[in-house]
């Protein structure tokens, strides 16, 4: 009886797991099929090959798009790591005037959707001559209230004894930060880095309005570009491109799984 119940439970589990991952699995499968077979509706074709991937790399700028996304995701992550660490340090360890008010100021930014700021931001970046450039794609995102909160939260876990000890031996702020605070919070830092990379690898709206050439287009808007140029044909190549773009995401998710789950318990993330 219980065995039957178990088997039943597993049956449903497998079914639901298959349904949830079906879009990705079917996408991967389609990316291996010749476009002619897909167009004819022969999804059960066995003519699988990597030809679509070769075609995607040779005939579309997908590698260029991916390189751009790597660059902007890494630059933003690095920029945020530096700026957010500094700000979080101030909120966690320093006393200063208007601390509460400044903290509230950071808090308020979380209520303001980026979507509502794109018009003036576009105008600012245009004035600075940063359209279609890495600077324009990255610098606006160098600070985030979210990152500051997440790191501050981790920094507050540093035991007071360590803090007092570092004062005793005369460490200055930067020494304390680098020798004690950061190593102590490395688990959060890894979560932070993976999360920021993922978020900005997936950026869409901002690259959509500030990039104008394939030289700076990122993966996500590149996908739109390819789709717009070629909607009615070449399903195989489009699927291969999508899967290529998905790969780094999956790698980061696999590496970061445990960190993300931990992040849910401490800091809380939302993709």
């Amino acid at each position, binding site marked *: 009886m219980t065995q039957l119940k178990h088997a039943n439970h597993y049956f449903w589990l497998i079914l639901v797991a298959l349904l949830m991952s079906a879009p990705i699995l079917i996408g991967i499968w389609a990316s291996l099929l010749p476009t002619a077979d897909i167009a004819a509706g022969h999804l059960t074709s066995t003519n699988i090959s990597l030809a679509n991937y070769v075609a995607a790399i040779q005939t579309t700028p997908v590698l260029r798009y991916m390189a751009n996304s790597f660059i902007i995701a890494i630059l933003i992550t690095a920029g945020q790591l530096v700026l957010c660490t500094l700000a979080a340090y101030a909120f966690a360890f320093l006393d200063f005037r208007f601390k509460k008010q400044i903290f509230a100021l950071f808090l308020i930014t979380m209520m303001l959707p980026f979507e509502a700021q794109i018009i003036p931001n*576009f105008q600012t970046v*245009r004035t600075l001559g940063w359209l279609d450039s890495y600077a324009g794609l990255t610098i606006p995102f160098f600070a985030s209230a979210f990152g500051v909160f997440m790191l501050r939260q981790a920094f507050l876990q540093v035991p007071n004894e360590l803090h007092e000890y570092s004062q005793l031996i005369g460490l200055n702020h930067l020494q304390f930060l680098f020798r004690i605070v950061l190593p102590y919070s*490395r688990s959060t830092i890894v979560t932070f880095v993976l999360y920021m990379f993922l978020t900005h690898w997936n950026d869409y709206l901002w690259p959509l309005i500030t990039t*104008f050439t394939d030289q700076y287009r990122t993966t996500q808007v590149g996908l739109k570009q390819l789709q*717009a140029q070629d909607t009615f044909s070449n399903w195989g190549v489009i699927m291969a491109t999508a899967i290529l773009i998905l790969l780094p995401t999956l*790698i980061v998710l696999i*590496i970061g799984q445990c960190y993300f789950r931990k992040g849910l318990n401490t800091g809380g993330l939302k993709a």
Partner: protein
Amino acid sequence: MSKTFWHRWGQLIAATLAVLAVVSGIAFTTTARNAAQASSGRIVISFWHSMNRPNGQLLDKIVDNFNQSQTKYKVVSQYEGSYGLAESKYINTLHTNVTPTIMQQSDIPTMTAVGDYVPIQQFVDADHYDLNQFYPGILSGFKLKGKLQSMPFNASSSVMYYNKDLFKKYGVKPLSKSPSYSEIRAAAKALTEKSKGAMKGATLQIYPWLPEQLAANQNAVVVNKDNGRTAAATSAELNTPAMQRTFARVQNMIKDGSFQNYGTGSSASVNQMAGFLAGKIGIFMQSSAAAGTIAKGAKFKWGETFTGSCGRRTG
């Protein structure tokens, strides 16, 4: 947990990050090299266009051929979305680092209103380029005060597309080569009724060029001073009998329930095309340039007619 996890995964993560850093480093240098290559010796001409799918591929071929034909210039073509989107991008980025050298655009009135371009006539005069290769009728559409503003490159004619299979399926007589308005209205109504609402008979995208064409077919203008050609237009003449007739006809089809409204904005034409290709629309009016997309995407027999007399005759 975090400590053991760090020990287990830390090096892997560090290694991954290092690889990523190297990759981006390489990408940076490639960019620099590409830019250097492009600028070394060759003058880069950036070219924004709105041609996708079969037309876009053909255009890329033309550009490639030109680039291979000589070593002095390099044309870099970029698809920037529909005419409307490309125009917005152009106007939003005037006098910036991304402003294109050459641009393909259909909306001459807006472009002239914005200004900031060199009329092609200057280059025609300088090169003594022979404009007699073009149909005078087409050329006149690109002229302002007798001066050619832009190069006729892909002069669109407005045509009517219709789904022959649907006409046959519902027993509606195919459109004639140059259908009258009443013929179109009757066909649209018959299609809608006989399909029991599974499709709509006709649509007209909310896009200024289309009513403008329909009014022009009735020898009417949309702004004064001969559509702004003899002098800068000072007033709109939209409320003309020709324009009223045009919209009354649309209104009639809406009353018949045979009209599909795809709305305004950048997605309207995509939705209209998707609807036609999906057999949801019997008849629609669009640029002759759409024929390539229809030929490639339609899984049914389709026909093309003039829009000429459908403008002129009353209905």
